[in-house]
Structure formats: C-alpha cells, structure tokens
C-alpha cells in the first residue's frame, strides 16, 4: 500500500464541510468504529437500578454481555445487562411477542426501577415497533420503559448510543422545586470528584445533583429538574440538556474538556452566572498557570508535526490550540463536523489545511506514517510500532479525570514530553 496514493484520495479540511465529505483512509477498515449498542451499554451501566434489555442477534447480545461482565458497575455475570436473541423466525415474523415474554421474565427476576429496551441493526431493518411495545410495557408494569435505537448503519460510532440513552432519560424526569444544585451531564469516563471543576463547585457550596451517566439511580434522574443549571461536559448530553431547558427551564452550560484557557475562562464565567454566584477568586491563579503552560507550548512545540487520532478532548478545539501554538497538524482523524466546531475549524484553516479522514482504521495508517513522517501521534496506537518509525505517542487518557484549567497544563506537559522523545528518536538516541 502506498501512503502517498492513500493521501491523494483524502480531502483537506477546507474541502470537508460535513462528515459525509470525510473519507476513510481505505474501504477495508480495522478495527472500525465502536457500535452505538456499546455506547448504550456504557450509559446504562451508570444507572444503578436500571436494566438493559438488548434485542438483537446472538452476536450483538453476546458481545454486549461480554463487555458488561467486565465493565464496572454493571453487576458482572448476574448483572443488569440481559437480552433477547433473535433467530430467523423472529426476523421473518417479528419479535414483539418474544420480547414481551422476556420482559415478563426479567421483571419477575430482577425487579428493576427502569428498563432500557435497546434495539440493534436487525430490529431496525425489520421494522418492529419497539417504541409502541415499550409504551405498553411501561403502562403494564408502571415503570419507565425507554427505547434506545442503536442501528450502526445510520451513524458513525458509539456516541449516538450514549446520547440516545441519556436523552431517553428525559421521560423519567418530573418537575421539581429548584434546590440550587448543578447536574453533571455527559461524563462517561473518569471520576468527576477528582476534577478541578468539582473542587471549585465544592468550595463555592454548590451541590452536584444528577450525574448522568457516570453514577446515578432512577430516582436521581426523576429529581434532576430540581437543579439550577446543567453542566454538559460532552456533546452527547446536549439533546437532553436542550429538552430539559425547554421543558423545565433549566439552563445548561457546555463545559467540555477544553484546552484553551480563554475558552475555559468563558465556561467558568457562564456557569457561575447561571448559578447566580460570584466567580471564585482562585480561578485567576488557575488561569495564570494555564497561560504559563501555553507560553511554554509556544516555546517548545513550534514546528512539531503530528497526526491526530482520538483523544478525550474536543477534536477541533484541541487542534486549533495546537495549531495556534505553532504545531503542524498533518492529518486529523474525525468522525464528526458539527456546527459548534465551525469557529475552531476556521481558525485551523487560517493557519494550515491538514488532511482529514475517519477514525478507527489503524492498519493503513502505517503507510501514512511513511508518507508524512510526523513527529507525534495523538491517540491510541502501538507505541513501539510508532517509535520504530521515529514517532512519539502522546498519551492523553490521563485527562479523563480533568475539567478546567488543569487540562491545559496536562496537555502541554504531554505534548512537550512527546516532542522531546520524538527529537531524541530522530537524533538516533533513546528518548
């Protein structure tokens, strides 16, 4: 495979306005993106008294149960992930009756407080009306039964599964009197307790109410409208936040894992305005620390080329940050171009015009390395394989427990360390 030929088929960022414009490196991919069914499982596992009933092939149900057995908080083998495995007969004649029977068995044995009926590709193709079934089961058992559709042929990766599961929780919510708390919406990984943002809120006397989907129960979801504000830490929670704003008047603040200190400052300001509280004084010091990290980045990272894979940060905001400190993005792997990203995309384009391609296709990337010779790779890759090509891996998963100015310092440290390693590799010595 010729990396230059592969690149010749890729589009530049300036040529891609929607994700449909972005091409995969190759038509044959490995390992491919994650499935929205897995995204749904990731979200349901955090709701401690809810069940996940998957309706799908033996294979879909097998892999999800396999995932759930080893996932934290899902209850292991006897846990809250169960399924209805469809056969050829169900595909031909419909699966509603079978699902109903399974539901009855599940209710008798597990006594959940809410149930997510999660459909898969085949159910969506045969067109069984699982929404109607969920409504009737909800009425019969007097508990929330929510449908989550996870057909992968209509979306790019697992995130719609997370998003739809969280959005489905809206049906559980009931109007409440405001208690001044803040909900945390969209944190899938890491421990919020460990974040800078959590510490700042704690010091300001703000109680965190619902934490969806990283640790809550059905009652927490029901009472969520009591919050004064929703803190949205990931785009997957935006549809839910918008519905809550419309239905209950709860404002939301998008406080994602931003890297730029100015953006983080704006998040803090909006959040404390929404809470009706003064901005804590110590944020100034935190911002000064982040700005100092940016100065270091400008000194040490100018000219450092990289390929961007998958990180816990916002793709375009992070790439803009790196481009603005003088780094050179050669190829950006992405699975979405959203209207919210437009300003960042334009800022990147003002400085450079990298190639864009879709994520989760490691195999042909090997040939791209030989064509572009980047110094750094950001994302999940085999470090030894990269080192052999003179490329240093930037490890960013440690940012899972971070929100706020701490992200900037962490990122700059990781980039500077990797750049140093890459220079050493190119000089022929060990890093």
């Amino acid at each position, binding site marked *: *495979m010729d990396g230059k030929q592969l690149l010749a088929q890729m589009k530049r960022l300036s040529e891609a306005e929607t994700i449909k414009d972005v091409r995969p490196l190759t*038509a044959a991919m490995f390992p491919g993106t994650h499935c929205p069914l897995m995204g749904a499982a990731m979200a349901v596992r955090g709701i401690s008294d809810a069940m996940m009933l998957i309706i799908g092939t*033996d294979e879909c149900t097998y892999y999800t149960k396999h995932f759930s057995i080893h996932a934290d908080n899902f209850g292991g083998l006897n846990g809250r992930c169960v399924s209805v495995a469809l056969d050829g007969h169900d595909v031909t004649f419909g699966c509603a009756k079978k699902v109903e029977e*399974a539901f009855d068995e*599940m209710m008798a044995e597990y006594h959940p407080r809410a149930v997510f009926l999660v459909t898969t590709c085949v159910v969506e193709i045969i067109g069984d009306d699982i929404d109607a079934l969920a409504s009737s089961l909800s009425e019969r058992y007097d508990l929330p039964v929510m449908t989550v559709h996870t057909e992968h042929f*209509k979306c790019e990766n697992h995130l719609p599964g997370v998003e739809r599961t969280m959005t489905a929780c809206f049906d559980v919510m009931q109007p409440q009197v405001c208690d001044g708390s803040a909900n945390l919406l969209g944190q899938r990984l890491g421990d919020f307790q460990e974040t800078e943002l959590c510490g700042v809120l704690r010091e300001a006397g703000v109680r965190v109410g619902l934490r969806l989907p990283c640790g809550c129960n059905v009652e927490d979801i029901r009472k969520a409208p009591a919050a004064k504000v929703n803190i949205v830490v990931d785009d997957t929670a935006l549809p839910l936040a918008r519905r809550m704003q419309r239905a209950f008047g709860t404002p939301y603040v998008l406080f994602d894992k931003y890297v730029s200190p100015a953006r983080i400052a704006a998040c803090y300001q909006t959040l404390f305005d929404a809470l009706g509280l003064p901005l804590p004084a110590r944020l100034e010091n935190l911002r000064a620390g982040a700005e100092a990290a940016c100065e270091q980045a400008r000194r040490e990272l100018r000219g450092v080329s990289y390929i961007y894979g998958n990180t816990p940060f916002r793709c375009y905001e992070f790439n803009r940050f790196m481009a603005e400190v003088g780094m050179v993005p050669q190829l950006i792997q992405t699975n979405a171009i959203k209207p919210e990203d437009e300003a960042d995309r334009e800022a990147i384009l003002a400085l450079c015009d990298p190639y864009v391609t879709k994520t*989760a296709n490691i195999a042909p990337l090997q040939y791209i390395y030989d064509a572009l010779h980047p110094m750094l790779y950001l994302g999940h890759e085999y470090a030894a394989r990269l080192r052999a090509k003179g490329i240093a891996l930037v490890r960013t998963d440690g940012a899972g427990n971070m929100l706020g100015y701490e992200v900037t310092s962490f990122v700059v440290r990781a980039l500077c360390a990797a750049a140093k390693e890459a220079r050493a590799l190119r000089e022929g010595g060990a890093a």
Partner: protein
Amino acid sequence: MSLCRYLPTPSDRMGILWSLLCIEGSVVLEYGPAGTTHYSVSLFGSLGVDQQNRLFTTHMSEDDVVMGDVSRLERALVEIDEGYAPRVIFVVASSVSAVIGTDLRGVCAYMQEKVRARLIAFEQGGFRGDYSVGLREAYRLIAQHAIAPTDERIEGTYNLLGLSAGAYRARSDLNEIRRLMREAFGMEMRACLLMDTDMETIEDCGKAEINLVLRGEALPAAEILKKTCHTHCVAGTPYGYAGTLDWLHRVGAALGREPNGALVRELEARHAEAVQMRMYGMMLRRDRPAATIYGEYELVRGMAGLLEEAGIPAVNQLSAHSLHALPEHDPAVRHLPVEKERIELMRGLRRQLVLADEVSHTLLDADNTFVCVSLPLVNGAQVATHMPLAGPRGADYMLEHIGAYLDTLS
C-alpha cells in the same frame, strides 16, 4: 422462556469467523456495520485468534442498506488484494447484509476477475443456527474450495479436521493428539482444520494419508475430501483411557498398521487403574456418585465414557450447542436451547461431579464438585497449551478430579 441472562450460544457467523481467522495467509472481510467487527476483537483475542492484518470490515451506511450498493465491498476487495496480497479473501456476511439479501456469492463471482486472491463467500449472517452450524460450514467450504484435489500421498502424515479455537483447551488437545499420533504411529500432522494453520498448508493437505475427524461438524468436509483426494477418515476424539485405546485401534485399522505396543500396554494399565475407582464408589454408604456434563458434543460423550470407566454414571449429558449440524448423535446427549431450563437443572444438582463452563459454575450448589471443561470463561484466560482434556493426559487430569469428588461423598 425467551430471556437470555448470561451469554447466548455463539452464532454460526461467530463460529465461522473464529475458524477463518486462524488461517494465516488469508483475510476475512466482513460486509456489515463496523461496530460488530470492533466488538468482536475482544472475544477473538481471548480465544487466541490473531486479527492483525487478517480481519477487516467495510462498514455499511444507510445508503448501502436502502439501495443495496456494494461498491464499498468491491473497493475493499481490490484494496486488500493489492495491499496485503492474501491467497484467499473470505467475504463474510453480517446480519444486516444477510437480512437485506446481499448476493455475496454473486459479488465474489464478478470480482474474482479483478483480484488475484481467491474469493470465498460465507453468506450466513447469524441466522442459520449456532456456532456448531457455522463450524460445519467453515470446514465444508474450505474442503470444497480451498483444498486442491490430488491422488498423491505423503506417507506418515495426517490431517486433523474439526479443531476449533472456540473449544476449551483446544490447543492443548491439539498438542496431545499430535503427541499420541507420533508415539502410536510415528506420524506427523499436515494440516489442522481450522486452528493455527495457514492457507498454503491447507491447499496442499489433500496429500495426507488419513483424515482424523475430531467432531461431527467436520464429517461433511471429510466426505468431500474422500471424493476429491480419496483420503480415508476416522471419526471421533480420543477421550479417556478406553476411549483413546479404541480410537488408536480404529486409526490403526484404517492405516493398516498396529499402534505402538508399549503405548497400548500403558493405556491398558491406566484403564485398569481407572476401573478400580469403581470400588470406591461402591464402598460409599450414603451417596451414589453421579455426574453432569455440559460442553461440546464430542467432549460430553468422551467424558461420559471416561466417567463410566471410573464407575460414575453421567446422569445429565448436555450439549452446549445444537445438534442439528451433526450427521447423527447419541440420544443420551441433549441440548437445552432454553437458558432457563439449564439454569434450573444446574441449580437443582446436589453432590454431583459437574463438568461444565464457568457460567454453570456460578449456578451450582456448593456441595457439587466442579471442573471446567467448556467455554465461556467468565474470568481469566487460557494460557497453557499443555493441559489437554483429550488423550491419556486429559484422562489423568480428570481422574484426579474424580478422586477428589469421591472424597466428598459419604
């Protein structure tokens, strides 16, 4: 009775995938949503199946599903052929492409002119049965399309048909059977269908002197090879001492030579020792020894035979997969397709020797004696390749457990 609380029985497609992925020099291309492929990585990894540059997916978009557009499959075939130069590309349907009726064989037929690799289509999308059906299809299609017809023979060689990476201790059993064949007949394995092998070996394996068919699902493949390569076969797996002796004699009869005398005498002696264990069972005042076996069909039958040697009746012989793909089966072995029936059966066992999987283990009362003989593993992974369930070494291992079990009875 539709709820699946634990892991469902793997589908035909899964059995096909883990079999084909064991063939170096080939590539498996899935025509379906990418998520299924990514999801499978963890399971196949735990089975010791290498996927690096061997497994690819095309992904499918809504347009592909609605319009039946196969152009991304066509592009992927050309790319893989040019980029990896495999001898064979197995094009495997997904549940989605199977339901919408994509004609994979048709695509492979016209794309064959554009690629150097041989294209073999597997149209099962997970709806034609469980993995047992998938294994049968994998063995059958490989025998039909990949093994070159021949009349030539290479003396002293044999093929193993019916190995599966999805079987518990499969690699250990493979090593034990190779050891046995070397010791008994001085013969060496040529190809192993389908585990830890490569395409070149498979294509050329028709020259072996004999095919040893370890599971019923591989019998149709053996029949094909009888016709195309005129190779005789012997069916069955050597479990237990008596079972191993019988197997060796049957192999010897097919080869027209006797198994090594010293080995035969050693096995006869071990069998005699096992039979003596019956006395311990007869000396018990209160309990009567009994066993339940849950696992793959051949293993269940083999273990029932070994337990019989030691005087322990296997009162429940349960196949972990359907029996449809077997040409014939022992009526003593049942398959319980409804999970709840198996759960209730396992929960009801008392003071038995239970040979089963780790899921069953979690259901057992503590007064039973459990031995793992079947996948899935819930915790941990298989590492050893020298701890077989088959052959005399497997029988030795089981005999230790039988002794421990008898000690628990009064």
